């Protein structure tokens, strides 16, 4: 193996290792990923918001409220299917231990967004803010085509 290639491989390995270590330790940030709201049929009184919430801090994260200027009200819900029954629970809490990523996804935890104040079409954006104790976590949600 030529020396240049060896140096390149060692550098890359070191870089990846250091990167992974930084991820495991956490970067002290709460980050949001993949924040999205499926477009709803015209006149829909309620929509659902989904995102991945990453707790990069050393403290447990507990969010218990959500709000946004484009919705009359918002809550944190969880869909569960038990004994063949689909139920929507007003969970009102999203928790993430240090280093964890919590996914709000269809068929599970989601943001229940009541009374859209304007028509939100695929391609539009809207901001929602999660209240997590003293911390406010805001994310820009993309309105996505359901199909």
């Amino acid at each position: 193996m030529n020396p240049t290639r060896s140096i390149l491989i060692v550098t890359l390995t070191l870089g990846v290792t250091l990167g992974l270590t930084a991820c495991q330790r956490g970067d002290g940030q709460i980050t949001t990923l993949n924040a999205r709201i499926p477009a709803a049929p015209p006149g829909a009184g309620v929509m659902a918001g989904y995102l991945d919430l990453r707790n990069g801090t050393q403290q447990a994260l507990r969010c218990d409220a959500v709000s946004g200027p484009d919705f009359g009200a918002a809550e944190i819900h969880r869909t569960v299917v038990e004994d063949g029954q689909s139920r929507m629970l007003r969970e009102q809490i999203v928790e993430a231990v240090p280093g964890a990523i919590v996914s709000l996804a269809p068929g599970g935890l989601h943001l229940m967004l009541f009374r859209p104040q304007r028509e939100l079409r695929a391609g539009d954006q809207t901001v929602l803010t999660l209240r997590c104790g003293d911390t406010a976590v805001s994310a820009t949600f993309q309105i996505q085509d359901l199909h």
Partner: protein
Amino acid sequence: MKTVIIPFSRRLPGTPPELFVTNVTAKSSPSKTIAFAFAGALALIGGILAATWFNTPATTRVASGTLLQQPRVLPPLSLIDENGQPFDVDQLKNRWTLIFPGFTYCPDICPTTLALLKNVQGQLGPKAEKLQVALFSVDPERDTPERLKEYVHYFSPSFRGVTTPEPNLKAVAQALGVAYAKVPGATPETYTMDHSAALILINPRGELAGYFTGPLQAPALVADLQQLL
């Protein structure tokens, strides 16, 4: 050869119970022999039929759920469709129908399921014409025909939306095997509805043919429907 049972009174002292039944040779006429053979054959056939009947399960598993061995005849439904027109068992005939119990104020699992059904419909190709999809709203309080029409047509112009006010809602839900319950929310208008998650399959005779149970996956549903349609 003839089998006889020795009466209890003729049991010899010390005879073990298994010797109660024994074979003895006796003379009999040919017609009697034929009659006995015929009766025996009949009994054998009857036994086999009975065993088959009792061993037949009430349902058959398919990839996405369960089919009833004996489809269930539905009573009159007296539903209202998305155009405000009567929708009854006649509207279920001459095609297969998938009924999805839900409501339009359900932003999570209901649109996800209807989008999945739209996807399934697309994958069925020409056979899709033999399949009708209907949202059966368990929330007639908010789901007017106009609202149902807007909602289901957003997914596909061929989707139907049906409902009925109480107390008929309860009767129809019972006939379809659907359970539902109203759950209060923070404000009167934010209540939600618990409802059965399974899709109901209706055959072209308008009979309840089975249930597709979750978690619903498009490929498995398509494979099942390709066989049925």
